[in-house]
């Protein structure tokens, strides 16, 4: 058994809603995390019934064997495997033995990073905070001292010490880290001063569980393959580490996760350059990645593609050249298999955009033949608008940005993205010209 490192957390979190990763994919991810400088893989998928809904039920032997394999793979790869149990849906005082038993099983496998999460359960005040904090404290007390502990409170996205949170941390042993997603459930901005102050007031390390690149719930129409979001370069030093919350695509999540982990280690570097360097390491991915680089704070299309779109309306062919090059050449098979629906959506654009441009141009040069230009462009747009998957910018998504009034958490309208994709821009401008409403 290798010695447990008590250094800062630096890795990824499997904590999204939806079907957990396949075992083989998870093992591959653990091996991969070590290759990009990560050292943590935290297992907490919301829809693993034994992790959350039926947390008291012991994992069956085959699941425990898989977890043993994970721990073993982590030891080879230099990656700590963290296991989190989420008892918050129906926690009752007196449940402590069941919680300890569940966690001890992981400890017995060799896991030395353990966590208890109360995220996404009904909120409460100080009384609930004390109950939850006592649950964590009981587990910490019952297991040997060589465990790196973390806890996720109900109020995990906050800019303040709520009554719940104050009571929660008061009940916790001092060396239990707190999972924290920033001032919001998904945080477009994480001020360093706020982080430092909150950590001081809570008396413990905050582990920044960044909800990037996850895309579940009402973000699911967008695939986050882009650069790590703009964060303050001083943020890594202000917290106890980073855990990136992965999305439901275990292979494709590697690109944005690698970009994030690399930047976190070298926060003075340009995050886009880091992303481009990581992207260069995946042959054949560039075309799709440029189409899927948008996120909450940068919802528009790839700037260069957008510039080519405007130019294309006046005859420039770079946009068509981009589409003509395709999106599959050289792409590794496992990437192509996982990204197939997105590749198909990209290829639909590669078919549709030239059609719309051709309709415009044949009208511009007076050689129109076939369906009318405005109808064609409107049809292309109509079909694009109805597509489930959004590429080349975000047309609509709702990111879980939250704010607090007093202790009460509520959705922040800043999380609603209504923007224009490349197709929207193209079709709107083309239709404006075709119908005479734009010069």
């Amino acid at each position, binding site marked *: 058994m290798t010695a447990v490192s008590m250094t800062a957390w630096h890795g990824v979190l499997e904590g999204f809603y939806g079907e957990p990763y396949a075992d083989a994919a998870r093992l591959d991810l653990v091996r991969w995390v070590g290759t990009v400088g990560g050292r943590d893989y935290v297992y907490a998928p919301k829809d693993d019934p034994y992790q959350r809904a039926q947390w008291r039920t012991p994992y069956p032997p085959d699941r425990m064997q898989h977890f043993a394999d994970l721990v073993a793979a982590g030891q080879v790869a230099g990656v700590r495997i963290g296991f989190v149990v989420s008892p918050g849906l129906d926690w009752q005082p007196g449940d402590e033995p069941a919680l300890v038993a569940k966690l001890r099983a992981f400890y017995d496998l060799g896991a030395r990073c353990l966590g208890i999460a109360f995220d996404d359960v009904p909120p409460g005040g100080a009384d609930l905070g004390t109950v939850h904090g006592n649950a964590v404290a009981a587990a910490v007390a019952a297991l040997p001292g060589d465990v790196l502990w973390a806890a996720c409170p109900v109020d995990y996205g906050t800019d303040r010490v709520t009554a719940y949170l104050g009571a929660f941390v008061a009940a916790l042993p001092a060396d239990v880290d707190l999972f924290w997603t920033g001032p919001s459930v998904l945080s477009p901005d994480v001020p360093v001063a706020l982080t430092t102050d909150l950590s001081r007031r809570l008396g413990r390390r905050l582990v920044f569980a960044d909800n990037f690149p996850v895309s579940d719930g009402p973000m699911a129409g967008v695939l986050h393959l882009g650069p790590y979001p703009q964060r303050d370069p001083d943020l890594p030093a202000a917290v106890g580490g980073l855990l990136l919350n992965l999305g439901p695509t275990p292979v494709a999540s590697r690109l944005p996760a690698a970009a994030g982990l690399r930047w976190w280690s070298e926060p003075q570097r340009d995050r886009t350059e880091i992303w481009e360097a990581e992207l260069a390491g995946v042959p054949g991915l560039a075309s799709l990645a440029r189409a899927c680089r948008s996120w909450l704070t940068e919802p528009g299309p790839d700037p260069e593609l957008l510039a080519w779109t405007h130019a294309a309306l006046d005859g420039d062919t770079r946009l068509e050249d981009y589409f003509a090059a395709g999106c599959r050449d050289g792409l590794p098979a496992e990437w192509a298999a996982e990204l197939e629906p997105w590749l198909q959506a990209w290829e639909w654009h590669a078919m549709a955009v030239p059609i719309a441009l051709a309709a415009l141009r044949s009208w511009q040069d007076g050689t129109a033949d076939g369906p009318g230009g405005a109808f064609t462009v409107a049809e292309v*747009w109509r079909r694009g608008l109805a597509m489930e998957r959004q590429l080349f910018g975000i047309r609509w998504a709702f990111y879980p940005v939250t704010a607090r009034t007093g202790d009460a958490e509520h959705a922040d309208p800043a999380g609603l993205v209504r923007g224009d994709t490349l197709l929207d821009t193209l079709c709107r401008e083309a239709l404006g010209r075709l119908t005479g409403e734009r010069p």
Partner: protein
Amino acid sequence: MSGLRAGAAVADITPTQPVRLAGFMARQPTVPPLVVADPLQVRVLALQDGDTTGLLAVFDLVGMSAAFAGPVRLAIATATGVPVERVMTSCTHTHSGPDTLLGMDLYAGYVELLTLRAVEAAQTAVAALRPVSVGAAEVAVPLDLAVNRRGFPHEPRLQVVDLLAGTERVATVVGVGIHPVTHGPDVHVITADWVGHCRVAVEAALGGTALVVAGALGDVNPPGGDGYDRSGGGAALACSVGTAVAGLATTAAKQTKDVGTGLALSHRTVELPVAQAELSRLVSGGADAVVTELFTWSVGDLLLRSLPGEALSGFAAALPRPGTTVDVGLAPVWQGYLPHPDLMGGGYEDELGLGADAMSRLLVALGAA
């Protein structure tokens, strides 16, 4: 050749196999045996002035989503050489025909039948083009014939557009907003409803080809508690409503005034946001925005204006009505009910549509103050 010319034609679009009947949310989702009370038709009016040609194709259907209307318009355009932006589709909104909104339980081959017959009618209408003069008139519709089912005060009107080649009538366009729902959800027969009876009566009285276009019918029913005969006597009610509307139309036809000359066909698009509600997303096909085509056709003082759904009377009342204005509802596609955003909150019609923001934007695009 300058000067206005017109032609009209009719083709049968009656399903030849059993289909689920579309229109009533309360109807059982079954596919009843095929019983045809009277045929469903597509009626095409061709208008031409010099190099400008427009085709209005009115279908005895509950409505067509873009997935149905688009290919039909393309086929007509390809077959006739008329630009697709000048091919306007509309539906009479019969609730006793196949589902051309979502395509539920539509047998393989019906879309082809629909398309081929529409093309056939369009080609025939174009081939029949001849010089015409155009007159128009508008009369009030009795409130006991056009019942506002939401209890809103309204002033229903009926427009007649008369296209005459000398003394011979080429076509009569009747614009009126009354839901074709006389048979109700429990009678499973194919029928054009009162619209079919109306056309027969108008043609018997006036000659030529009659087209009935759906005006602001979103909240307007025929007489009866729900606009249909609960005793199953829908056919009699359809006949009586159709005959009454035809009577108004023939009366109006005697009062028409020449609208002048000069055919102008305008085609625009407008982006409409879609509300988050589930029914709004059903209407939009899942999209959070839609692109809607707007047609505005004029002949002298006459205006034919497309409305992309079932306009409620409050919505239509907010629109400018220069000269004689005929609202062509459900054109070129059905995008749900079109309520006035300031008059929402009173019924399911407000939910089964794109939402208040879209309606505000649509009103502006249509020239409402």
